[in-house]
């Protein structure tokens, strides 16, 4: 289980607020949950722009899209369980061909005939309507998880292996409110490691940038 509660407890133990075998009280849980939600949104923002898509009918998005539902439309958004193998347009690569038109280097697609794959771990989809929804894909459980409205016993929107990284960032936020306000070298190291794990996109394949002038 990779729950918000587990994450907050780990953060408070990192702050040495909780001794072994102890649990936070309700005020500390509320503080922790607020911090956790802020951090998740911060990561969402830091991972870059999404491809904007305006929809007015039922739609199944690909990963890394922000769906803007036209006013007055009543649509059903179906979260994808598979997306095109070559991936979507990378919003960073303005001016260059996106991955849609060519399979990635090293792909076995032409040989084995695979056309789709599951969404990447950490892939995002945002829906902007009267209500706002943000979902992240968790590769470890193969499911989209809401990144808004986190609850104490709900699953986190990141894979379980990132729970500790997220906890270190929560600890950083709680250092002054719940903790003693003193940063130890061990905690600083841990926060840096967690930040790297969550804010850097390791293993994301990217086309070699090449000019196509002619």
């Amino acid at each position, binding site marked *: 289980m990779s729950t918000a509660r587990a994450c907050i407890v780990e953060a408070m133990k990192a*702050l*040495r*607020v*909780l*001794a*072994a*075998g*102890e*649990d*936070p*009280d*309700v*005020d500390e*849980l509320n503080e922790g949950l607020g911090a956790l939600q802020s951090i998740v949104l911060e990561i969402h923002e830091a991972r870059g722009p999404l491809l904007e898509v305006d929809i007015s009918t039922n739609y199944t998005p690909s990963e890394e899209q922000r769906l803007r539902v036209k006013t007055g439309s009543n649509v059903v958004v179906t979260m994808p369980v598979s997306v095109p193998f070559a991936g979507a347009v990378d919003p960073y690569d303005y001016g260059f061909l996106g991955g849609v038109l060519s399979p990635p280097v090293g792909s076995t697609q032409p040989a084995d005939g695979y056309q789709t794959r599951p969404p990447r771990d950490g892939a995002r989809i945002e829906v902007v309507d009267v209500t706002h929804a943000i979902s992240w894909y968790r590769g470890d459980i193969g499911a989209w998880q809401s990144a808004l409205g986190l609850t*104490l016993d709900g699953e986190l929107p990141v894979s379980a292996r990132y729970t500790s990284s997220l906890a270190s960032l929560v600890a950083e936020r709680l250092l002054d409110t719940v903790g*003693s306000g003193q940063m130890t070298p061990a905690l600083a190291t841990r926060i840096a490691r967690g930040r790297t794990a969550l804010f850097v996109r390791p293993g994301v394949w990217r086309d070699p940038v090449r000019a196509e002038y002619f």
Partner: protein
Amino acid sequence: MSLLVLDVISRAARLLGGLASGSTLGSDEAADGLVAYNSMKRAMFGTIIGPRLSVQPGVATQAENGGLYTGPAGPGVIKAPANPRSGWRFGVNNACTISPNGTVIAGGSPNYVTTGPQNFWYRGDIGAWLIEADGMSVTEGIEFPDELVDYLPFMLAPVISSEFGSDLTPEIVAGNAEGRQAFARLYGRRGRASQLPPLGLGPAAAPGGAG
């Protein structure tokens, strides 16, 4: 050694020199002692027994340790905190139904219906949520485990010392402090590290006895 409330009051009076061996308390003294005992007990909750209660907004269906909630009216229930530890507390400020969430509450395992505001604390050695309530009679038993009951006369003695016009002896002061520590060890949350004293006991006394 299970003592009754009357035994605790009597022993506290004897420690203060206000009651001779073999003598019994008068009914007025016992009644005053009961008020003092209840007053002392109330002051223990949220200090050396569990956290203080903090009002939570909205209507809740799941309680957490330290929360004071409005439970759902009608058929809904509010669940007691999951996996409770000794000394955990929660409360409701309205008439509602509480699910013990796998434990025992107010002496039974079915849902418990409150008629108004009520607070609960968890006694881990018997795995039950108990109602925080005043003792109604000096002939009642005491809801704390035996290993703590022995400290209660020492803890009550300072509360009633002025009524009995007695000074506190060093033995009573030491017994009171030891009793508070014993309660806090069992029902309070430990500090930032396991080797520190439990929260609720306040900062360590300064050298020379001040603080």
